[in-house]
């Protein structure tokens, strides 16, 4: 599966890059939310049973307890997603666990109307039953993998990389080490992050799917990708795939914050 990226321009005309969340991660987030909804309903029904037991069978209070249960379950079923999407800036607990977030098409956070529409149309998206077949078809055929509710609300779901902590020590090492090595000899030392962004992406794509490739084709492809890069660096590599791995790791390992 390749990573689908989308750009959204901010009012400052700076394009922001987002990763589109795929059907699989959204399904997992949905399962977590479903488990939580079930849990809430269980708690609610326990409370109601307790209240009914205290009030005694057949009493009018028991009727009220049951009525509260019926209304409560509808409120949980319909209100769970809107509540969290509004309170937690587009993240239900399941989405938060998987690093997903609902955004509006222009990259802005969801508002009340958007969350209302996307979660009511969920009633159609979840058909048949709770299997979300409609949503799946919609996500496959639309840009940005939107289900019908997203189309109606003008929203989409993005995957955010989990924030990493600063890696200051490593960087300090890089900086102090690089000038020293650079002056050492005629062979240019491998410098971190010397790939272009394009190359980095191509290599990332190759590394992600290499195990699914025919071994011969895999070697061949690694060679084809590595050749222009090696030529630019004026280097050689006995094993192109290993070279690609190392360069990619270097590009990934260099941090900013």
């Amino acid at each position, binding site marked *: 599966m390749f990573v689908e990226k989308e750009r959204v321009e901010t*009012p400052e005309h700076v394009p922001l890059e987002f990763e589109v969340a795929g059907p699989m991660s959204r399904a997992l987030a949905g399962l977590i939310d479903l488990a939580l909804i079930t849990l809430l309903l269980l708690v609610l029904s326990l409370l109601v049973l307790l209240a009914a037991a205290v009030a005694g069978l057949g009493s009018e209070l028991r*009727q009220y307890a049951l009525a509260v249960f019926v209304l409560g379950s509808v409120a949980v079923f319909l209100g769970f997603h809107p509540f969290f999407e509004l309170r937690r800036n587009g993240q239900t607990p399941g989405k938060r666990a998987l690093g997903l977030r609902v955004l509006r098409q222009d990259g802005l956070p*969801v508002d009340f109307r958007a969350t209302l*529409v996307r979660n009511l149309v969920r009633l*159609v998206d979840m058909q048949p039953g709770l299997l979300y077949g409609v949503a799946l078809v919609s996500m496959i055929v639309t840009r940005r993998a939107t289900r019908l509710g997203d189309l109606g609300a003008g929203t989409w779901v993005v995957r955010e990389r989990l924030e*990493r902590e600063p890696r200051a020590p490593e960087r300090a090492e890089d900086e102090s080490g690089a000038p020293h090595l650079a002056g050492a000899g005629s062979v240019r030392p491998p410098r971190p*992050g010397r790939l272009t962004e394009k190359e980095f992406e191509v290599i990332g794509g190759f590394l992600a799917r290499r195990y699914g490739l025919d071994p011969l084709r895999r070697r061949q492809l690694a060679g084809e990708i590595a050749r222009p890069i090696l030529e630019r660096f004026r280097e050689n590599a006995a094993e192109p795939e290993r070279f690609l791995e190392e360069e990619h790791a270097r590009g990934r390992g260099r941090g900013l*914050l």
Partner: protein
Amino acid sequence: MNGDRVAGFERRNRAKWERFRRMASSFAKGSRPPPEEVLEFARLYRDVAADLSAARSLGAPPRTLREMNALVVLGHSVLYRERAVRTAGLGGGLLRFLLSEFPALVLSRGRLLALAVAFFALPALFAYLRVASDAGEIHRLFPSLEHVIRPDAQQGGRSIGAMPLFTSSILANNLMACFFTFASGILLGIGTAYILALNGILLGALAAHFANHGRLASFWPQVLPHGITELLAVFVSAEAGFLLAKALWRPGPWSRRDALVLAGREAARLLLGVAPLVVVSAVIEGYFTRSLEEDPPRNAFAVLVALAVAAWLLRAGADRTGAEPHGEGFPLTARLVP
């Protein structure tokens, strides 16, 4: 590669980025910033966004770009956040919405409302005529119905103790039905039309069934007192659903994608008014109808409800100031949250 320039660029700006990251993540968690920090934050945001552009054109390494991108995304989502919903004064706002804005909104899409009524009424009429001309037809239409509905049976009142449960079940069921009617509008309106027609057929066939037993006069008092608001709720939900459908059939000057979003935003306002209507009709059905034993007071009550609904809709129709203009632009200009 211009690695040195990139490194210098990073060194110069790292402190600023770090400060911005701290502020953004603390604001994202909901802490209220002092006013002077808001201005600083907004300035920093513009700076960091510009830095991201600069980093891109300098050819900074991918990981740097990714992290800067995440930083600007974080700031963007904090800065352009929707104003938090205040609960204070919400009651007054809701009342004003229900009394003037909502009816005006309903009438402003009168054609779609009429379409909803037609998709209900025509099948109802059709079913009535079919069952009235052939009494056996109802069993073919609804095989399971005959055991439940016996027109000649005396209306036995339920024990008043069951009313809360009865009312809440009706409420829950009708609310889901209304929302489903709306949601199916996104299937080109076909789902909405289908649900309307199904309910129309049910009502028409039942009315004819009672008529066949010569008890039509006792049918309406059972249906109308709560039915008027209930049907209005269904029709408005269908109107909202047809709004979505219209965006797909006839998107007008917009692309279908954009038309659908605009329609969705309008439909959301319509749906806000549906829920109170459903509540009102469930309470009527659960309490008022049951407490009125005889048919004449029930009919009188139904007339009262009808008049109230008509006055409510038409008064607001006279001045449509509350309705939003149809051509709502995309909300590109979001507000700054202090």
